[in-house]
């Protein structure tokens, strides 16, 4: 068993994959000599040499484009985009190029690339460096999308993503890089893409969470003391419809805990699908606990108010469980968006 920080687990996954498969290469801004700005690739340059571990210029389009091409050419590149907000300059290479190559070559060319990126608020990086922009990828045919929730899932999903023959975007909540988890790295720790995990069983309600909200939801449920099932969605495209439906069919209630603002993100797809499939079988409306529809603010107090906190999630869940009605969000009385 190893007790690793999430950034160490990512480095370990990269090293194990590179050990296993000589076609795995890693590149991105300051990932080589410095081991990554979040220390997710420490030691790789020394272990695998400058051919397979490379620092790039600040050129996100070139980074992703080179990953697409390298994958077409027979490597399994793992490229890093430091902050997911930066996909705003490189989205084309992910969704319009990389994700479509296999389709537009009728299967003659595969693109086994992984693009890792950090997401989310909680570290004081402010409005342009704190979003979780999953909706930019959610609808992209040909692409898979996962978001990890700690050291173990970061290891397991990254290794699975590297083995995948198509392009995968791996989102890593940057607030969790320093958090530790005990697990045994190696073959048995490799997870399957497309599968959710039940993190705690329960029968009064089902909570689905993603990324850093998994831990928040877990603590909130703990605090609540109710029998609530917690599902870590892990894969956002495709998401594990079966696991979620099975759980909600049993509990009769669904709440989502999302870091994303109320509009958009992964939540509406899950809520709308479950609402369709379990129409008439739900005991309460689907509760979405989200951030407000505003840019991520810098000031610490504001940023942690913006993010759903343990207390807020617990209080939302409590009202909803007690009344069967949707509680108002904390910002309901503040005139929004002005």
């Amino acid at each position, binding site marked *: 068993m190893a007790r690793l920080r999430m950034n160490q687990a990512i480095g370990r996954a990269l090293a194990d994959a590179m050990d296993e498969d000589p076609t795995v290469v890693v590149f991105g801004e300051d990932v080589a000599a410095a081991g990554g700005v979040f220390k997710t690739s420490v030691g790789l340059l020394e272990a695998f040499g400058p051919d397979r571990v490379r620092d790039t210029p600040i050129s996100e389009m070139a980074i992703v484009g080179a990953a697409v091409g390298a994958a077409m050419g027979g490597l399994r590149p793992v490229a890093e985009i430091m902050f997911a907000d930066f996909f705003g300059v490189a989205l084309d290479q992910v969704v319009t190029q990389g994700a479509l190559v296999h389709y*537009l070559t*009728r299967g003659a060319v595969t693109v086994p690339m992984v693009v890792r990126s950090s997401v989310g608020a909680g570290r004081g990086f402010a409005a342009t460096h704190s979003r979780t922009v999953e909706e930019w990828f959610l609808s992209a045919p040909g692409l898979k999308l996962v978001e990890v929730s700690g050291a173990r899932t970061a290891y397991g999903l990254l290794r699975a993503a590297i083995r995948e023959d198509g392009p995968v975007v791996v989102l890593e909540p940057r607030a969790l890089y320093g958090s530790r988890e005990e697990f045994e790295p190696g073959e048995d720790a490799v997870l399957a893409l497309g599968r959710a995990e039940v993190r705690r069983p329960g029968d009064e309600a089902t909570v689905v969470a993603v990324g850093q909200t998994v831990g928040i939801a877990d603590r909130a449920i703990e605090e609540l003391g109710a029998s609530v099932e917690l599902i870590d969605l892990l894969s956002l495209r495709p998401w594990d419809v079966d696991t979620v439906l099975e759980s909600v069919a049993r509990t009769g209630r669904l709440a989502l805990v999302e870091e994303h603002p109320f509009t958009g993100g992964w939540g509406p797809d899950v809520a709308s699908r479950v609402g369709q499939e379990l129409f008439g079988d739900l005991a309460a409306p689907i509760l979405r606990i989200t951030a407000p529809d505003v840019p991520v603010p810098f000031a610490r107090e504001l940023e942690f108010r913006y993010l759903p906190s343990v207390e807020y999630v617990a209080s939302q869940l409590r009202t909803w469980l007690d009344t069967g009605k949707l509680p108002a969000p904390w910002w309901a009385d503040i005139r929004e968006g002005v």
Partner: protein
Amino acid sequence: MAIGEGPGSVTTYDAKTPLRRREEVIADPRARLERMMEIRHAEQKIRELHEEGLAWGSTHSCDGQEAVAVGIAAAVPPTDHVVGAHRGHGLGLAMGLTPEQLLGETLGRSVGAVEGLGGSPHLVETSVGLVFTVTLMGAGIPIVAGLALAAQVQGSDRVAVAVFGDGAVNIGAFHEGLNLAALWRLPAVFIIENNHYGEFSRYDRTTTVEPPARRAEAYGLPWTLVDGQDVDAVIEAVGTAVATARSGGGPTLLELRTYRYFGHSRSDRAPYRPEGELEAWRARDPIRILGDRLVADGVVDEADLAAMEERCRERVEAAAAHALAAPVTDVTAMFRHVYPEAAP
């Protein structure tokens, strides 16, 4: 190797045909001339298919630019990787695609290069190294850097070649891709096919340096301006750049000067061209230039030329008939190859 391992397209012609056609172009100047004629005929046929309402959608003809296509195909071995752009009918045929593959794609038929799923701007044939065609301006440039990176890491002597229009030199991907390729000294060749126009804008109305290839200096790269109407000049320049890349000398940026005789796409009558410009370029028609040269050198005579034209006409007509008789792509095809099949 990821390329060529997939199940490939379902076609009725022989899977080895594209490679054979490519080898002809590499080996024989007469085959090059004939291929240029074939391209011209195919473009004419595509226009007819559109006028008759049989073809539809996005298509871009390359009449006048045949020497660029054939010159590249002749200078680059089929084991190298090429990524083309939207105006790719000529490059496709030159690299070895059959007229059936092109016309089938144009018509959305199962015999198309990519089963009619991509349309004529998306020609691909991995058996001859045409590994992708990119329709967003310049997006292929970083991808080609990546293909070259693969070769470099693998210790392969493969070279990767990007072909793109003059319009692509002002897009961010051009800048980022060239800088990365230069920095890592990747085995790549970048080819600007300067046909003088973007959609309706002359390149010098949008680009602030003359010639555009001079931008290579911003990345410490060598560049050459080439007569794109002379297939032998194209072969020479591309061949040199490919050899440089293959021997570890890093990338080159080439600019092949050429001209498109028709509008950007079907609906464009090209009113923006200055008077006389088209005629001046037609006077330097690439097919005529090579034809005259081969006649002068005694390699062919006028009767040979006429026979070539006739063969091309017949080949293209037969391809059109074949493509039109082929089944429309099945609806289920749009669900295939979205993701690679999981290993069994």
